[in-house]
């Protein structure tokens, strides 16, 4: 990983941990919600964006992380920190065991396979009376973290997720993952293990999603089949990443801020209508801006800056109107002295 990424991660960690203290309890709670959503979005992006496999099993890992954390605290006497770490590890193991058969499948088969796994786990949790059955259970009250500690833990989790994505974006390993996504045959020809790299991406993503699930459980204090294994985890992850910009680092983060702040908070009172808007948004974005919001912003910024970059952007084959706008901006930028 580059020095710049290291500095970025350090700044995120120090600033996040330091800023957590002075916040009010309500803001600390919101902070945990946003950060866990960001961890889930970054994790989903590793599988869907960089590895190119649509996983509809996000809820399986959120639920698994939550249940593992809660059960370890309630029945094995784990402290919350060790429970979160153990839940993350268990999610990684589960992702490995699930990915081994599922990743031999392609495209829709993988998508529906992960969906089936999530639904099966939810049905299983409902029948598991020892873990509270259909209504779930409450976490033991004495071992819980304070809201500052939980927010700091979320900052650490977020930094981990960011580090994972930066690693995938910048390392030779990440390049191989993307190569497998783009052309499986050529990647195999270059001596890359397709299953191995897909599996690695799936395990990293599963572990991070499980970590987020454990943090969510500590935040909401309960785990239940309907909540922890809810399909909405999968829907939200998809929406965050697709709206913000798939296979980018900043995109999913923007997606979380946009979807969480604008949609979830503003439209909460509307109930089912907000789900209609969420689903509709997925359709509209993929129809008219399939790359998502962030790449569009970057492109606009480059155009506005003009010069060589604008011409580069302009040279790419694209829809007529935006190409013309680019041409206009580029010519103006080169004529006017800055």
């Amino acid at each position, binding site marked *: 990983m580059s020095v710049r990424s290291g500095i970025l991660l350090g700044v995120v960690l120090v600033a996040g941990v330091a800023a957590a203290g002075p916040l009010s309890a309500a803001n600390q709670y919101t902070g945990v919600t946003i950060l866990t959503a960001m961890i889930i979005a970054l994790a989903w992006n590793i599988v869907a964006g960089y590895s190119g496999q649509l996983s509809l099993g996000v809820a399986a890992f959120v639920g698994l992380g939550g249940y593992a954390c809660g059960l370890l605290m309630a029945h094995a006497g784990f402290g919350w920190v060790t429970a979160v770490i153990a839940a993350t590890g268990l999610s990684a193991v589960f992702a490995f065991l699930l990915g081994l058969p599922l990743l031999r499948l392609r495209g829709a088969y993988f998508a529906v396979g992960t969906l089936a796994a999530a*639904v099966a786990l939810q049905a299983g949790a409902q029948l598991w009376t020892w873990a509270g059955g259909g209504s779930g259970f409450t976490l033991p009250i004495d071992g819980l973290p304070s809201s500052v500690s939980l927010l700091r833990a979320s900052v650490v989790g977020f930094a981990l997720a960011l580090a994972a994505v930066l690693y995938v974006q910048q390392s030779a390993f990440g390049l191989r993952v993307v190569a497998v996504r783009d052309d499986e045959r050529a990647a195999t020809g270059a001596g890359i293990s397709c299953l191995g790299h897909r599996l690695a991406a799936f395990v990293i993503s599963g572990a991070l999603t499980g970590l987020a699930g454990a943090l969510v459980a500590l935040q909401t204090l309960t785990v239940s089949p309907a909540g922890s294994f809810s399909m909405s985890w999968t829907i939200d992850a998809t929406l965050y990443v697709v709206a913000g910009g798939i296979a980018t680092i900043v995109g999913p983060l923007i997606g979380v801020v946009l979807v969480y702040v604008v949609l979830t908070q503003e439209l909460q009172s509307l109930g089912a209508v907000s789900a209609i808007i969420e689903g509709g948004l997925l359709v509209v974005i993929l129809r008219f801006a399939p790359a998502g919001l962030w790449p569009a912003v970057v492109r606009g910024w480059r155009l506005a800056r003009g010069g060589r970059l604008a011409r580069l952007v302009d040279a790419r084959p694209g829809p007529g109107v935006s190409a013309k706008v680019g041409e206009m901006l580029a010519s103006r930028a080169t004529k006017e002295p800055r």
Partner: protein
Amino acid sequence: MSLTILINGILIGSLYGLVGMGLSLLAGVVRMINLAQGDVLVGGAYLAIVLHNRLGWDPLALLPLVAVIIFAAGYLVQRFLLNDILRAGSFAPLVVTFGLSLVLESVYQEVFGANSQSLPAAWGDSAVTVAGVRLESAYLVAFAVGAALTAATWGTLRYTRLGRTVRAAAADPGTARLLGINVERVFAVTFAASAVLAAAAGVITAVAQSVTPTGGLSLLLFSFAVMAVAGMGNVPAAFAAGMLLGAFQAVSVAVLGSGAETLAVYVAFFVVLVIRPSGLFGTREARLT
């Protein structure tokens, strides 16, 4: 466990066969999975309920009307939305149909409420007893409709000009285009037919059992299981696989009790998907008819 339970399971399974056949046809021809397939079934059921309240017709008389409306809607959706999205690769259609599924489920919930609803029919509660086995008419109708639509789909694909066009477009869209086949239109017709198969199953499901706004997800998994067992594009095998699934579900309810049966079906589906991704009867390549 009595024979009645098993036979009723097989009969109702023919509806799983229909909705799975639609999914399988779409996968074989358009090479696309409609993650909203289960919600199309639920939509067909609600449409029939609305039309029944307005017109008071028998569900069987409503069936052609529902089919025409759903066919038109399906054609337009594929023609003006999905065909464009298909060009973006295989990832985008999955996300878009996932989004459509979310929209449909929420709309049903807003309009029809969260409770389950069913469609009344004059023959809905009657039953005949054959050799000591009590068969409900609704389940027999389900089987008859399933068999008729399977035969119609199979016959159309195999013996008509439209069927040859569809098969040509499925085998090689590029060459079909060169030969003057309007592939986009073939895709739209296929999607519409796939939706009609699901919606028809929905109408009968509403008579024989009931529908809920969020029932689409499990129905999607059921129809995917049918496709996974039968192999892509294999119409008669899809019908058979549906009945197999119905029998399996009936047996697991009887043996494990309801609740555990959902888990059993999903686990079985998962195992089939992983062991034989190309289907128990199928080859890796999509075959039509």
